[in-house]
């Protein structure tokens, strides 16, 4: 192996770049940061904090259901708990954590110095943070949403949804979805236009492909829920009639719009995880992933098919039979691209030499757990069978097998894999194995019995049940599984705390067999990522590079410049001046957040908000050239 790109660069170059790209010191510098790595890390940590909160909510629910006629919580709090659990896990954890991993890793993996719009990126993060905090403030003040994360009208509407509970929910959802859309645009443009020279589309790492497909899905799915929840908010606040059947509105309109977002949402969470799987498997088997074109094709096909399935959430609402058949076939068909990817991974492992470190163990867990969720997924594509298990614990089991198997196992593997890159420290291997083993056992013990509970008649979202139903012992078992999961999460937290207390120990590539560009720079990476941008010579950038890594020279060191390349072949096109750190995205997010919070109470917030947001936006965009910038005209300086 050759010296790394960062190692080759002279100290003077690195010093100059550091001067240009480093954040300002102190708290204000921290708040002004537009570095994709700082923002990405904050995103991951915030999303993980929400994961813990959502997990606590689940734990309380499992305590309540452990015995028949239990009295841990009453129905009102129970309804808030499962609504908060779903909303948190879907809107505040799963999607943000996936985009966050992309925002941190994509620029590094494609050999760039930052995302396309760094200030907008910071704005998106703060918008997400404010939205999440607002929802939880409402919850802790007794105004937690209580109509389910799917918020079906009319239960969530003006007539039955009490207080401001669902208004807070609706505004939070719209606001955090805006953050999601921003992250998607960042990722798409960064991937399209900022790949290092030589990284043509057909050489892009599978991780980057999966992030690209996810970003497109977000862009096309999120606007639906953003507008849908505004319809709900307006129905509640301004007496519009979108979902009021008495005035020609339609309860099913909500469901169509919701699931047109809601089903792709599942793939938005699942597809980036496929990118982690491909990356980690290839590193830990020391093999190129088998069938790259098939893998890319499968990702794209899955992305498209994800938009053709939404009605399978509505099979019991009386859909015309021809429609049912179409959506059944489409739902079953999505098993084909997923199957192809599975077979390709198995072929990769078969041909490779697996190394059983924690990230790889989580990949094995992903296979074993996800395949069960995938099989039950094909089952519920059947309209007759779905009519039995829809809205029962069978579906709870299915969706947790899919989402935990398909997303959380890979994510956990990804935490272990990229933790040294994020922090410069390797997570402990022994605790990692305990973490994995407990999680794997816990997930199966918690969720497998739920299949049976659903088949034996237990509906979802019930706060209690009578002993005669016979559901008691399986529920107790599921609760024991949940306890095991909780212990495994605690083991993870201990592992993280111990590791962070230790001294940095990670070299550029602690795994020694990684293939993607982020492992060519120090751990953690310097503010400018690459002292000299690499020129990429193959699909597996670090495996395919020459003895002397060719690099890009000629980017300015006294200004923040990105190299923009062409869309298909990544040929150098022009240099792009990217903006300095600034406080205005934070202030603009605060102004927008204030507007959305005020919208809970009055529609006039729209008008006040427009004025409130305009000021920080002008300051944000107003040019402040630095010495040496080309000026066409004007300016007091």
């Amino acid at each position, binding site marked *: 192996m050759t010296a790394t790109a960062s190692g080759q660069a002279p100290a003077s170059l690195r010093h100059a770049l550091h001067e240009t790209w480093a954040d300002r010191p102190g708290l204000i510098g921290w708040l002004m940061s537009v570095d994709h790595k700082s923002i990405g890390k904050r995103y991951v940590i915030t999303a993980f904090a929400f994961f813990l909160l959502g997990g606590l909510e689940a734990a309380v629910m499992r305590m309540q259901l452990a015995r028949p006629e239990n009295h841990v919580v009453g129905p009102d709090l129970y309804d808030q708990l499962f609504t908060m659990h779903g909303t948190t896990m879907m809107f505040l954890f799963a999607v943000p954590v996936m985009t966050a991993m992309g925002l941190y890793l994509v620029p590094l993996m494609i050999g760039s110095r930052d995302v*396309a719009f760094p200030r907008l990126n910071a704005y998106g993060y703060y918008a997400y943070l404010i939205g999440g905090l607002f929802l939880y403030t409402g919850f802790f003040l007794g105004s937690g949403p209580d109509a389910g994360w799917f918020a079906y009208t009319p239960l969530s509407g003006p007539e039955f949804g009490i207080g401001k509970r669902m208004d807070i929910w609706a505004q939070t959802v719209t606001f955090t979805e805006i953050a999601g859309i921003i992250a998607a645009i960042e990722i798409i443009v960064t991937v399209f236009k900022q790949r290092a020279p030589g990284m043509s589309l057909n050489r892009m790492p599978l991780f980057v492909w999966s992030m690209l497909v996810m970003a497109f899905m977000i862009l096309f799915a999120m*606007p*639906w829920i953003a507008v849908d929840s505004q*319809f709900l908010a307006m129905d509640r606040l301004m007496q519009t009639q*979108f979902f009021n059947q008495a005035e020609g509105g*339609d309860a099913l309109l909500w469901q169509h719009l919701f699931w047109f977002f809601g089903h792709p949402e599942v793939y938005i969470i699942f597809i980036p995880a496929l990118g982690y799987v491909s990356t980690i498997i290839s590193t830990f088997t020391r093999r190129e992933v088998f069938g790259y074109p098939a893998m890319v094709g499968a990702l794209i096909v899955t992305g498209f098919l994800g938009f053709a399935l939404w009605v399978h959430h509505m099979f019991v609402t009386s859909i015309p039979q021809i429609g049912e058949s179409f959506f059944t076939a489409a739902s079953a068909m999505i098993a084909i691209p997923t199957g192809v990817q599975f077979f390709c991974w198995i072929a990769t492992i078969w041909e490779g030499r697996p190394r059983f470190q924690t990230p790889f163990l989580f990949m094995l867990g992903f296979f074993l757990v996800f395949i069960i969720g995938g099989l039950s997924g094909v089952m519920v594509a059947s309209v007759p069978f779905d009519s039995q298990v829809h809205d029962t614990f069978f579906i709870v089991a299915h969706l947790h097998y899919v989402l935990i198997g398909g997303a959380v196992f890979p994510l956990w593997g990804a935490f272990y894999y990229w933790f040294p890159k994020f922090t410069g420290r390797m997570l402990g291997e022994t605790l990692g194995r305990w973490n994995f083993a407990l999680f794997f056992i816990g997930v199966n013990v918690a969720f497998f019995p739920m299949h049976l509970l659903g088949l034996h008649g237990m509906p979802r979202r019930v706060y209690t049940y009578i002993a005669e139903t016979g559901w008691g012992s399986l529920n107790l078992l599921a609760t024991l599984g949940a306890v095991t999961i909780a212990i495994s999460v605690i083991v993870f937290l201990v592992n993280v705390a111990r590791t962070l207390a230790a001294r940095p120990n990670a070299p550029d590539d602690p795994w020694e067999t990684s293939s993607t560009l982020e492992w060519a720079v120090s751990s953690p990476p310097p503010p400018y990522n690459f002292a000299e941008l690499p020129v990429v010579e193959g699909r597996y950038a670090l495996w395919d590079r020459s003895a002397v890594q060719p690099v890009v020279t*000629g980017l300015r060191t006294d200004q923040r410049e990105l190299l923009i390349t*062409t869309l298909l072949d990544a040929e150098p096109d022009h240099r792009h001046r990217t903006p300095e750190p600034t406080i205005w995205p934070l202030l603009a997010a605060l102004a927008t957040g204030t507007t959305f919070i005020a919208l809970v109470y009055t529609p006039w917030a729209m008008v006040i908000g*427009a004025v409130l947001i305009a000021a920080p936006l002008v300051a944000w965009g107003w040019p402040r050239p630095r010495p040496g910038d080309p000026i066409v*005209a004007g300016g007091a300086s």
Partner: protein
Amino acid sequence: MSRERAASVDVSALPSAAFGHRAITWWGTLGFMTAEGLTLVVCVVAYIYVQRNFPRWPPPGTLLPSITIPLIQLAVMLLSIPAMAWTSRAARRLDLRGARVGMVLSGIFAVAFCVLRWFEFRALNTRWDSTAYGSAAWAVLVAHSTLLVTQVFESSTMAAILYLGPVEPKHFGDVDDSCLYWYFLTGGWILLSLLVFFSPRLHQ
């Protein structure tokens, strides 16, 4: 191994700004147009979906929308498109005067759209809280109006920068992108206007 070997690349001679699909701001604009366009699409879907719940369209007891103001709005919008095409060409020539005039012009047009929009709301002849028909029609207009207000902000800020601020080469790119957005804004409205103001007449 038969892999071709790449050489190091010197990019110091490359330009520091670009137009159109070469520039990342163009792609960013396209991204936001997609997201905002979809919000309009959702409103249209709602508008069409609730139609089947009414025996007549507009619902019994509701007047047809008036079309005088919408026609004027359409005419003004069509008029603005060549003006913005001219601005786009000026920006690509790096013609500062042209860009300034174009942005002022776009600001005036955007304000005019907003004023006309005020009367368009009244031309709907229904309230947002009357029926689902009223709600959906208002939603289409409100969704598009937020884009109009954004455009007033965008045009005036750009004009201010071009006249008052230090102008950098990238600002010509911004002007060019704002013309792209303009086509989306006006072209989108032509379709929405046909749906909300004119299509109800076809049901008569």
